[in-house]
């Protein structure tokens, strides 16, 4: 199935979601500079097509787990941007009541099992979600997003094994941006990621993560296999990371030329515009209008977050247990 067979409205929505992630991220970077968003965040900008291409194949009740770089996955899975922005500002109206922050955004109503501050920790948790779906017979699938750096944690291999022996309806999406923090993947990873998965007899697909249609097609195959009881799949998605590892990273370990070329040649948004223009499926003016709507929506989210109250101090010891001891 060619992804370009998506309907006009679906195409516009794909673009809208990718643009929303990009603008959300750019705005977060800006707001970090004002000091009003506390701490640090890890920006997903550049990788949008991966989250969007995968999540477009998912039902509302399917599960995903994310990484420390979780904004894009959350938005692609349908988590509300107003509550996400409020969470980043640490407000009571945030997705997690202000208790989680950027690295812990979760929304179980959307099947979003959480960003994660511990590298690779999402993989086994997602095996558990897939096990629930299988044993409860719900037909849901589960997607574990992880980075290339995460692939070197033992728990990734352990999860591959578990997923295969239990034939879980799970998709491991390895988003390879070439770096784990400031360390290049080539410096720390032996062999090939797809061969690692294949050694567990898990089928793999390698895909260009700046092309939402390729990701969509690959995810489609994986989801179909999972829903049909065919077990796990691993997608190795090649993506660019536009910003440094985190919001305070001077990013001097990459050359200015390297970064400029990456933004010029590997941009999922211009790639998308190019593709739909070639086949005259969506008017450029329509996409420009989407850009404006997205801009306005992000602006509203920031204003609302700023105006929202912080959690009351009494919240310090709520949510620790069902009932505090």
């Amino acid at each position: 199935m060619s992804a370009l067979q998506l309907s006009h409205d679906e195409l516009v929505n794909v673009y809208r979601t990718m643009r929303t992630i990009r603008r959300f991220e750019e705005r977060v970077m800006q707001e970090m500079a004002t000091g009003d968003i506390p701490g640090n965040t890890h920006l997903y900008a550049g990788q949008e097509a991966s989250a969007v291409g995968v999540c477009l194949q998912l039902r509302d009740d399917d599960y995903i787990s994310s990484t420390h770089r979780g904004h894009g996955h959350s938005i692609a899975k349908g988590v509300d941007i107003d509550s996400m922005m409020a969470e980043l500002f640490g407000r009571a109206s945030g997705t997690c009541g202000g208790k989680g922050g950027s690295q812990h955004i979760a929304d179980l109503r959307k099947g979003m099992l959480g960003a994660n501050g511990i590298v690779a920790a999402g993989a086994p948790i997602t095996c558990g979600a897939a096990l629930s779906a299988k044993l409860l017979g719900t037909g849901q699938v589960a997607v574990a997003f992880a980075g290339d750096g995460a692939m070197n944690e033992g728990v990734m291999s352990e999860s591959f094994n578990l997923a295969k022996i239990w034939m879980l309806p799970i998709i491991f999406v390895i988003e390879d941006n070439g770096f784990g923090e400031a360390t290049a993947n080539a410096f720390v990873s032996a062999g090939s990621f797809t061969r690692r998965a294949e050694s567990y007899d898990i089928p793999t697909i390698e895909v260009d993560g700046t092309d939402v249609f390729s990701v969509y097609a690959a995810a489609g195959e994986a989801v179909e296999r999972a829903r049909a009881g065919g077990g796990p799949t691993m997608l190795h998605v090649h993506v660019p990371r536009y910003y440094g590892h985190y919001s305070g990273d001077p990013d001097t370990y990459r050359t200015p030329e390297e970064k400029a070329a990456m933004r010029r040649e590997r941009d999922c948004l211009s790639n998308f515009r190019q593709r739909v223009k070639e086949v005259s499926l969506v008017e450029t003016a329509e996409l420009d209008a989407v850009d404006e709507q997205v801009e306005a929506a992000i602006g509203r989210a920031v204003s609302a977050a700023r105006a929202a109250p912080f959690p009351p101090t009494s919240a310090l010891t709520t949510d620790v247990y069902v009932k505090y001891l």
Partner: protein
Amino acid sequence: MAQKSFRQALNEALHFEMGRDPRVIMMGEDLTGGAGANGVKDAWGGPFGVTRGLLDAFGPERIRDTPISEAAFIGAAAGAALTGLRPIAEIMFVDFAGVCLDQIMNQAAKFRYMFGGRAKTPLVIRATYGAGSRSGSQHTQALYPIFTHIPGLKVVIPSTPYDAKGLLLQAIRDDDPVIFLEHKMLYDTVGDVPDGAYTIPFGEARVARDGKDVLIIAIGRMVQVAEEAARKLASEGISAAIIDPRTTSPLDEDTLLDFTETIGRVVIVDEANPRCSVATDISALLADKCFDALKAPIKLVTAPHAPVPYAPNLEDAYIPSADAVVKAATSIVKR
């Protein structure tokens, strides 16, 4: 004496000891930052800038940027320590010890005992700890009680730049596995630090301030909080002594008992969660060994039994404050 930051003090200790002893090596994630990339080498100088310049001085064989695989490289460091090297391994945030606790707790900590005293494990695990950076529940814990609980591990929690340097040099020269915990909010604090090498023995508390009305025992970053509280108390005419144990294992029981005997009123300030903590441990020790000298109940000022929250107002409320220490001290002095 020269004024130096906590970060610089640690960096000097690492430079000195690696220069002195070729068996000392370092390993950890982003220890230099930028390994294998096309831009600046040693771009980060470590996640918090503590290891800057070591790559230049000692080369990539001795300064090893590792994959993100704590169980493997902490275990490898333990194995290397058992067989002739003196590794310093870095866990970026102590919270990530969760990934490699087996290697620390069941392996490194046990070699000497299980092997009938025939093994030594000169391993230092450096890690950052502590709240205050708005980083959420998985990057802010003060986990030293967990390590203190485990026989075979030594646990060091420096509170000043001077102590950071002297204790780190001691840790590297020590033949047992040492957990060396650096509070991330202390890196920029400045104090007197001599240029040369010096060591501070483990199990010797520091008297941070002498006083007669109330004894404040404080750990790591909480020493600063205790000092602020002591200044406030002084302005109310209450004289507070402050003891910083510096190492929770071994623990300088003698100094803690001596001061308790003389002063008779004790406040313990600890950023860690309160249950089964260093604060409860010390409190039990004092109650056990010098109950008769106590003129009032021992007061604990700690974080609540909850994870560290993200929202700034909640995180501030989570961390023990000088005002809470003042309140606790006043309540027992005026009793």
